[in-house]
């Protein structure tokens, strides 16, 4: 059947800001969906407030609403747009929850919007624990003994019945947030309470734990005609107990016999049919290790992180096909775009193995709780393909960009046996490295199995690599047997690792490969194991086979290096930049070659580049592609710090780096050279110095005068960056950085800290002229990482003369160096003096936002200048700072605090947020309200249940004076003030009455348990874990989901809204905003 009639306009809901458990995979899915609809001639209306996404580009959807993802806003959009249908299964859990809400509130009915694809009834059957359980019992599919628990007491009674261990899973939470295992009453109490709190419907499932079983996932497709197929199955190396998003995953399954594979396949089909899903569905199983018994653990009746992985692993574009199914097509009517001549109604056969490794944020949050359980903690992931597990694992490891690039982690040899056993026993991000270390120390396979419960098959493979490395280490580089070296490369052991083992430079290692004719071959990802011809240029490399990929001839080729796994500080925004760079390259008639290793992203969609290499971003892998494709040049400015960090090594290998030269990059990254450059250009900078030895640090800090800002020389997202107020804090910092043991930290940079206003610009430069589309003003004072601060555009507190100075400095730097392409400059304005804080010779986090709100195709221009165009030619003659738009944009950070136990989410110079939202408005208040989602919680008069709202205050001594106005404003608005002792005493002195609470954990917890405040204002003493009670208060706020503020600046918009007229927020498309030229024209587009 062809597509349904009467579908001319469709609403798509995105997944919003990136949080742990819901990341770039939904940009990939959503973008595919929008494009799949557009090619059918359907008008696409998109709502998503994540500005860093490709899907919110005007070229992806016809109407883009960067507006809050809540029912009120979406209803307004529906009433304006009157779409014929909507798809809610593409926007992750956020999209799914909104869809259910829209349906339940009768909004879809009211506006006659047809819900396409999977119905709400089906969604609920899959999502609501009880409904799901009943359905499974009905169709005879096994699920673990469990009970739906809505209050603490019945949980306790149930667990008495079934016994420990049990697992607690809250309903409707992201990435299984708030869930966990319990082995005893104490643990049970803690997890159950947390789970009940975090579940928006106050419901958890308590079930018998099947920890240690194999965890296997199936990605299933179904169309309206009931044709069902399996796209891919995947097996977790980590047994049941570790969230699949945090597990090492392989595709296809490796240790299941065909009988077992088919048992689970049959079950999958039964489930998807019973749920009546139209589109994609993910089903997770636990399989016993000593029988064919299995349980269904979870079903996601929507596209998911796993479906993105399965799409990239097989080449089968699940979101695209699911969208076509949603509008009525049958699977056998949809062409398989990879082969171009077979259909979507088949099951991909792959002839390689895929390994996914999760990327954790513990390199940044070394104090965080590293244990892995049912609550996802990874921020991103990498994927690698090869023809053996060993090969794929080694490729994945060198894609991770951590302190390790192989199975060897520096901190492992120093562990005692007890520590090592503990690391094997308790899953953490370090377990894989601990396993390798254990084998190195002679642990047997049996010993490791008994500690880890990981299947023997995986452990043998890990041991194969360790054994090979051990053998290598017993030889010198010159005398290592050729066969052994070849075996090492067949396992894809990296050149960098070999360089470490033999202590010879990587370059020398590569020379030997040339002389021995050891070469990698490239293979096609074709969905069909070469059974049919494939047309899609999607490749991976292996040392286990011939090169079947012919490099193209004719067009000149440009390589775009992507940004690797998503981590805090380097997120989806760099994927946006990479994608646009590839498109810009194509636009000029070059061939765009993209390399990346992140399966969640749009850049690794085979339809973006002319040729996609799904490969690690290590020097050896890039060099191989550069040589194979004979590329003209490499674009490094769009892949974040990942790509920039490669610049030296690539240039050293003789690769042409486009744009800003290596010399300039070094000049900007070397603090000493950078400061002398600024001095030369007569640009003020903050007093600072470079420290090479640990013992120089304290004297240097004293000399500059406290407070000081300390950071490593090469950093992403302010990693290991701290403000220290005294010697003690400096010493603490030093201890921490020494423990991390990352060589790239040194030298350390120490700067004087000025609490001025921060702002930043993104500059496009061709060496002669610059374009600055706009200036972002930061709401928080300097000292808060730019990625974590609220930023507004156009700026409101920057005078014209300061603006002029900012641009002048930008021009000076760009022309002098010169910068060809992009740079980002961060400024601090203190006492009317503009200081340059830092210059990043690359695109930045703010580029996607600025591009969208101004309409300036920044990445395209920046790419084109690197390919030789002049800026004036691109901009039609305009240069310098562009005119400001007539509406406001406010970017606000989003934190994944509830996912990262032990991490203090206090604002500081180290970035902690995982995502961002954008609020747009014709007034600053509207934009703030949308960005910070203040609507409905601002006014005391609106407080629910007639009770007076409360504000909880705990203010550090140094900030008490400053806090007075803010707290007064809340008191005046009718808020009841609750304060910790010191703060309360201070307030009393200033005639503000408050309820006093002692700074004792038990009392605080008692208080919060009974009633939660409406917001928390907590200004901590500076420095990490300096104040344990403060951290506890913030933890309480996270646990009870109460908004909390650690900076007065962030709270200001809230206070401002008290006095502003409470105008109703209105959603508008990005196009409508951009058409506004004067504020008084607002009426025209409403």
């Amino acid at each position, binding site marked *: 059947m062809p597509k349904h009639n009467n579908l001319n306009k469709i609403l798509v809901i995105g997944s919003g800001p990136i949080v742990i458990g819901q990341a770039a995979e939904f940009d990939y899915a959503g973008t595919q969906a929008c494009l799949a609809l557009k090619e059918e001639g359907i008008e696409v209306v998109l709502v998503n407030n994540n500005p860093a996404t490709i899907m919110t580009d005007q070229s992806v959807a016809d109407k883009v609403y960067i507006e809050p993802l809540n029912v009120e806003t979406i209803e307004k959009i529906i009433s304006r747009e009157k779409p014929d249908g909507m798809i809610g299964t593409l926007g992750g859990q956020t999209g799914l929850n909104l869809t259910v809400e829209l349906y339940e509130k009768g909004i879809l009915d009211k506006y006659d919007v047809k819900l396409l694809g999977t119905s709400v009834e089906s969604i609920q059957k899959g999502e609501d624990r009880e409904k799901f359980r009943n359905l499974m019992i009905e169709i005879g599919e096994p699920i673990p003994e469990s009970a739906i628990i809505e209050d603490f007491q019945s949980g306790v009674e149930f667990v008495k019945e079934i016994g420990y261990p049990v697992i607690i899973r809250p309903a409707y939470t992201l990435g299984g947030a708030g869930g966990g295992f319990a082995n005893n009453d104490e643990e049970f109490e803690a997890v159950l309470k947390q789970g009940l709190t975090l579940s928006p419907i106050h419901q958890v499932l308590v079930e018998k734990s099947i920890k240690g079983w194999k965890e296997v996932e199936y990605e299933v497709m179904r169309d309206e005609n009931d044709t069902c197929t399996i796209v891919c199955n995947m097996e977790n190396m980590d047994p049941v107990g570790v969230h699949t998003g945090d597990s090492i995953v392989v595709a296809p*399954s490796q*240790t299941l016999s065909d009988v077992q594979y088919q048992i689970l396949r049959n079950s999958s089909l039964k489930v998807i049919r019973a749920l009546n899903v139209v589109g994609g569905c993910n089903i997770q199983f636990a399989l016993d290790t000593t029988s064919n018994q299995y349980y269904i653990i979870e079903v996601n009746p929507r596209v998911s992180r796993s479906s993105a992985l399965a799409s990239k692993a097989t080449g089968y574009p699940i979101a695209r096909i699911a969208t076509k199914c949603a509008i009525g097509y*049958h699977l056998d009517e949809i062409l398989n775009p990879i082969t171009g001549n077979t*259909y979507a109604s*088949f099951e991909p056969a792959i002839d390689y193995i895929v390994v996914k490794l999760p990327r954790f944020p513990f390199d940044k949050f070394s104090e965080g709780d590293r244990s892995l359980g049912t609550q996802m903690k990874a921020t991103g992931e990498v994927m690698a393909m090869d023809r053996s597990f060993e090969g794929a694992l080694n490729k994945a490891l060198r894609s991770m960009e951590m302190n390790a690039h192989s199975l060897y982690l520096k901190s492992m040899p120093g562990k005692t046996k007890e520590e090592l056993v503990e690391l094997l026993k308790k899953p953490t991000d370090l377990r894989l490295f601990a396993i390798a270390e254990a084998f190195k120390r002679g642990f047997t396979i049996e010993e490791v199995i008994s500690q880890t419960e990981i299947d023997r098959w995986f452990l043998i493979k890990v041991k194969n690599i360790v054994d090979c490395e051990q053998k290598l280490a017993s030889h010198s580089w010159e005398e290592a047997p050729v066969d052994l070296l070849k075996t090492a490369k067949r396992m894809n052991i990296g050149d960098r690792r070999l360089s470490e083992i033999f202590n010879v430079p990587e370059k020398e290692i590569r020379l030997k490969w040339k002389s021995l004719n050891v070469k990698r071959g490239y293979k096609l990802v074709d969905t069909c194991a*070469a*059974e049919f011809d494939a047309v899609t240029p999607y490749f991976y490399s292996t040392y286990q086979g011939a090169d079947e990929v012919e490099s193209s001839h004719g067009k000149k080729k440009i390589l775009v290096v992507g940004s690797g796994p998503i981590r805090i500080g380097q997120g989806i925004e760099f994927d946006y930049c990479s994608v646009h760079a590839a498109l810009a390259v194509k636009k000029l008639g070059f061939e765009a070659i993209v390399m990346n290793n992140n399966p969640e992203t749009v850049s690794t969609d085979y339809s973006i580049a002319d040729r996609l290499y799904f490969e690690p971003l290590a020097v050896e892998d890039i060099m191989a592609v550069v040589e194979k494709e004979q590329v003209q040049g490499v674009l490094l400015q769009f892949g974040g710090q990942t790509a920039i960090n490669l610049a030296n090594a690539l240039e050293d290998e003789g690769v042409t780096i486009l744009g800003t030269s290596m010399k300039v990059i070094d000049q900007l990254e070397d603090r000493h050279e950078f400061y002398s450059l600024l001095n030369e250009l007569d640009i003020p900078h903050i007093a600072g110095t470079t420290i090479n030895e640990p013992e120089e640090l304290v004297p240097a800090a004293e000399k500059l005068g406290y407070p000081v800002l300390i950071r490593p020389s090469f950093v992403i997202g302010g990693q290991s960056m701290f403000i220290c107020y005294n010697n003690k804090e400096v010493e603490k910092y030093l201890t921490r950085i020494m423990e991390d043991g990352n060589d790239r930290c040194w030298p350390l940079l120490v700067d004087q800290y000025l609490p001025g206003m921060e702002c930043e610009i993104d500059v496009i430069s061709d060496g002669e002229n610059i374009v600055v589309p706009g200036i972002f003003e930061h709401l928080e004072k300097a000292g808060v990482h730019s990625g974590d601060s609220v930023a507004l555009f156009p700026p409101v507190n920057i005078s014209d003369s300061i603006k002029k100075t900012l641009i002048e400095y930008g021009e000076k730097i760009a022309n002098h160096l010169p910068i060809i392409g992009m740079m980002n400059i961060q400024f601090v304005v203190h006492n009317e003096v503009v200081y340059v804080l830092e210059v990043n010779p690359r695109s930045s986090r703010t580029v996607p936002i600025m591009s969208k709100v101004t309409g300036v195709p920044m990445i395209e221009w920046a790419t084109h200048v690197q390919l030789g165009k002049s800026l004036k030619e691109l901009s039609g003659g305009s240069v310098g700072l562009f005119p400001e738009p007539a509406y406001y944009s406010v970017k606000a950070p989003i934190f994944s605090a509830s996912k990262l136990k032990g991490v203090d989410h206090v604002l500081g110079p180290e970035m902690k947020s995982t995502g961002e939202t954008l609020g747009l408005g014709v007034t600053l208040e509207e934009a703030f309200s949308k960005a910070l989602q203040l609507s409905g919680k601002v006014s005391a008069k609106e407080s629910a249940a007639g009770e007076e709202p409360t504000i909880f205050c705990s203010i550090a001594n140094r900030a008490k004076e400053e806090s007075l106005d803010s707290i007064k404003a809340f008191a005046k608005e009718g808020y009841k003030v609750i304060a910790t002792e010191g703060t309360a005493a201070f307030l009393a002195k200033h005639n503000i009455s408050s309820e006093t609470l002692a700074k004792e954990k038990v009392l605080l917890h008692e208080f919060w348990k009974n009633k939660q405040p409406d917001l928390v204002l907590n200004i901590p003493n500076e420095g990490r874990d300096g104040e344990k009670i403060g951290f506890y208060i913030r933890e309480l706020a996270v646990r009870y989901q109460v908004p909390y503020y650690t900076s007065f600046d962030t709270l200001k918009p809230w206070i401002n809204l008290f006095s502003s007229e409470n105008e109703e927020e209105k959603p508008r498309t990005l196009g409508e905003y951009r058409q506004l030229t004067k504020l008084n024209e607002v009426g025209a587009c409403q």
Partner: protein
Amino acid sequence: MKQGYLVLETGEIFEGKLIGELNNMVGEVVFNTSMTGYQEIITDPSYAGQILTFCYPLIGNYGLNDLDDESFQTAVSGVITGDICEEHSHFQATKGFQERLEQVGVPGLTGVDTRALVKVIRKHHTVKGMITTNPEVASLQDGDDVSQNFWVDTVSVKKPVTYENEGPHIVLMDYGYKKSILHALLQENCKVTVVPYHFSYEQVKELQPEGVLLSNGPGDPMKLQPWFSEIKKITESFPTLGICLGHQLIALAHGATTKKLAFGHRGGNHPVKELLTGKVQMTSQNHGYVVVEDSINYNEFQVLFLNVNDKTVEGIKHNSLPIQSVQFHPEAHPGPSDTEFIFQQFLHQVTTSGGRTYAKA
């Protein structure tokens, strides 16, 4: 491990490590795209005389067990793999892949770029080869070319074997049946008598079956031409189901023709469209020959199933008699069992026709 080679008649030579035992056989080199089920595949009699390439590189991961053999023999003439697992891991496993090859005297290679080999097979369509230690094309001349052997005669039972049961009595014509076909019938409570491929109509009739199933088997169906008329009589007299080779034989016996496919269908992911419902099923397949659609007598037969990818005939049904046949394997093993309803349909026909034989037309 010793170096070994797969030498192709077309001149290509693939190097790998030798496993199993050399047997000096020259056979057609074919490939299978299944990612699981290697044990079932190497014991499927339909592969007799063929050298089988596994597209999926990791073979042997879960070992071999005592349950999943599809016959009493390891039928393949050779096996080509990418990365043999030397230490398997599975609770049911009783031996390793390599060990099995050694025991049954079948040669194999590991460490081969099987994807490159598949592309060579696709280029040449049909290609013969041999696993040897001598990397010369000339070595093929010393080999024993078994590709044209009448393998059905080798793999079929020599005399009838009966499996007692409560339900209807089915004769399973054995051209190289897979154990799972027998199991599917036993599962449905059938009493089953497995008979040699050359059993005549009279011999079958003597057993008083209520239905007949023509099994899968190796090679060119035209090798069974001498028995076509008997097969026709059998099908006209008993409710009949044909599977794979059995399907081809029914078509041939009723006047259709078969042809060789370019490189066959071997795998567990072949989409087959049921023309009545438009539904697509995933099927397990293993065949090199196919019934020519235009050769079917549409007065007698209708096409029930078509392959979604290449539109070849996947199943036919007689317009008036209870005869149905499918090119794919509803018994699965390995592969999906989405089409196991074929057995139920067959048994429905068996029971509704009351177990009586039909008067000859």
